[in-house]
């Protein structure tokens, strides 16, 4: 085990997998300079054939990444901020998510789109979105949202060894988070397997991405009030490990979901709906969601803080649930 930051863990995953499979290529805007640090050093190591800066041309980038993957070249397409995925959405939504089905299963699509998500550093409304709800609705693309360095490395390595299109979303405010990471070259984290960060008996908290750390802190505060929290990080939203979540709620009878995405049609509302369907008779209180409201993110720091989930909001929602 070695201690590293989340972006370093992604970087290590790229290095290991690109060494292991010399067919993998990576391209994107400014990947040589590497704004977030995750692609740092790759160009020097692997050269211009496999690591390429692109123009600011997201339509071409996403479409070409899918075409290259379809032709047998595993491709990492770095989109920098997730909002830029929206300017290249055709390649993701109409091509990557649909081509395997449209070709009757002929196409294998080893393409991984990488982008940073989330607000909290006053980057304004067009660099602050958490758009995985849109991607979850596409039907044919996997979504990873790691919250720890170990999960980031293992999920990236799994994506690069697989043959399915994947959107790998890096919660930007978590990029500098340090944690222990395995050095085993075959350390992989499976898709569709939630991580139970702590077991508990009174309430289940499901937290996604940037909300995982908030939920850890909330669980500590709740423990001081005598509330035993079972804390679950789904890690991947497609596939989503609903079995683990539903089993936990059947045990605790209470659920709070913490998710930085806007509330409407969010991962949180989807999880709430699934639990409502499958564990209704176990629920002892209404399900609570701690999410962002259905508006674009403003710039001023105090407003961002007011709108985003935080440990206090998760504790408040949990206490309401406990009173229910």
């Amino acid at each position, binding site marked *: 085990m070695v201690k590293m930051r989340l972006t370093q863990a992604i970087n290590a995953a790229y290095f290991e997998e690109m060494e292991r499979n010399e*067919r993998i*290529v990576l391209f994107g805007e400014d990947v040589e300079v590497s704004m977030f640090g995750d692609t740092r050093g790759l160009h020097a190591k692997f050269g211009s*054939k*496999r690591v*390429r800066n*692109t*123009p600011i*041309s997201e*339509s*071409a980038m*996403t*479409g*070409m*990444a*899918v*075409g*290259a*993957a*379809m*032709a*047998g*070249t595993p*491709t990492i397409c770095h989109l920098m901020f997730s909002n830029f995925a929206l300017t290249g959405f*055709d*390649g993701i939504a*109409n*091509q990557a998510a649909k*081509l*395997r*089905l*449209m*070709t*009757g*299963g*002929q*196409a*294998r699509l080893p393409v991984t789109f990488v982008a940073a998500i989330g607000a909290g550093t006053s980057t304004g409304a067009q660099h602050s979105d958490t758009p995985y709800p849109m991607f979850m609705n596409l*039907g*044919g693309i*996997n979504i990873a949202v790691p919250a720890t360095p170990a999960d980031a490395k293992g999920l990236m390595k799994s994506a690069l060894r*697989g*043959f*399915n299109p994947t959107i790998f979303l890096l919660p930007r405010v978590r990029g500098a988070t340090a944690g222990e990471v395995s050095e085993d070259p075959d350390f992989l984290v499976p*898709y*569709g397997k939630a991580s139970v960060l702590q077991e508990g008996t009174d309430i289940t908290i499901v937290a996604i991405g940037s909300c995982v750390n908030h939920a850890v802190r909330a669980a500590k505060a709740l423990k001081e009030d005598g509330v035993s929290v079972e804390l679950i990080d789904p890690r991947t939203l497609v*596939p989503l490990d609903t079995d683990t979540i539903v089993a936990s709620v059947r045990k605790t009878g209470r659920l709070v979901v913490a998710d930085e995405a806007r509330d409407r049609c969010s991962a949180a509302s989807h999880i709430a709906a699934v639990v409502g369907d499958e564990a209704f008779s176990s629920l002892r209180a209404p399900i609570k969601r701690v999410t962002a409201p259905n508006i674009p993110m403003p710039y001023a720091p105090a407003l961002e803080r007011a709108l985003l989930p935080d440990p206090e909001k998760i504790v408040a929602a949990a206490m309401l649930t406990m009173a229910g």
Partner: protein
Amino acid sequence: MSQPDLHHNFTPGPERLKAMLERMLLIRRTEEQLGADSRSGELPGNVHLCAGQEAIAVAVCDHLSDDDYVGSTHRGHGHFLAKGGSAKSLIAEVHGKSSGACGGLGGSMHVTDLSKGMIGANGIVGGGIGLAAGAALSAQVAGQGQVAVAFFGDGASSQGILSEVMNIAVLWKLPLLLVCEYNGYSEFSASATVNAGEIADRARAFGMPTEVIDGNDLEAVWAVAAVAIDRARKGEGPSFIEAKTYRLRGHLEAEDGFLQAPYRSEDEIDQWRTRDPIPRLAQRLVELSALTATDIEALEANVAAEVKDALQFAHESEPPGMERVLSSVFVDQRP
């Protein structure tokens, strides 16, 4: 900026011309069958036919092997057959059968045969441009001399992805041939009303070898494609061909059912019928003494038998089951 000339006096020779005539006939007769099936209500979905445009697909694909890639559009039956796809798998697919090219899950607008390097017709008119450019990148990295071709129309030329891909393809010297099948219409709108300037000039602006040719002259398309594809194989970068043509059928076969007024004149269509690439090539072969009236009848009979067999195959095939769907979303993962 001076750009390499794509003109050359290459000629395919009579035997190859005859094979290409037969391939064009197969496309035409297959699509006539699908058009009839559409109008009779036998098809579950719509078809966009390429009648009149066959020479471009056939002449370009004559230079390609199964290891080369072709990306196409919603009007992709011709590209599918020109790239070596079978009439059986095409007709069965458009009829929504499990024996179709895509198991009946794709339909007319998504006919794909990866075993032939046909990476798909695409319901997004410029979608195939990005996919073909990506396949060209894959070919470049693999370093085996493969090339990729994107076929698209004048309508798709105004999607941003073409400009983005031309820029990247020139910068990266991708082994890519961009073929604009200029049929004068962007769905139901005359091209002149939706496309400013000359489309070929857009390609020239990126510094790409570019030619505007008569797309209904199979030999002209063949000669220019020969040079462009040879350049791509040698690592000399992308080229652009604007092939002027015309679709003799509508944007989609069902359009007569909803159009309140025609958007193009019968005179215009009749005028283009006189420039139909199929009789034109047949006449040329007769002039070369490479083909007789009896030969043409034999070609037609072969093609008619192939289409008839393919249709019977489609009729006798089963529709796809749900299991095929569930195994065709992800690899080794249930949706």
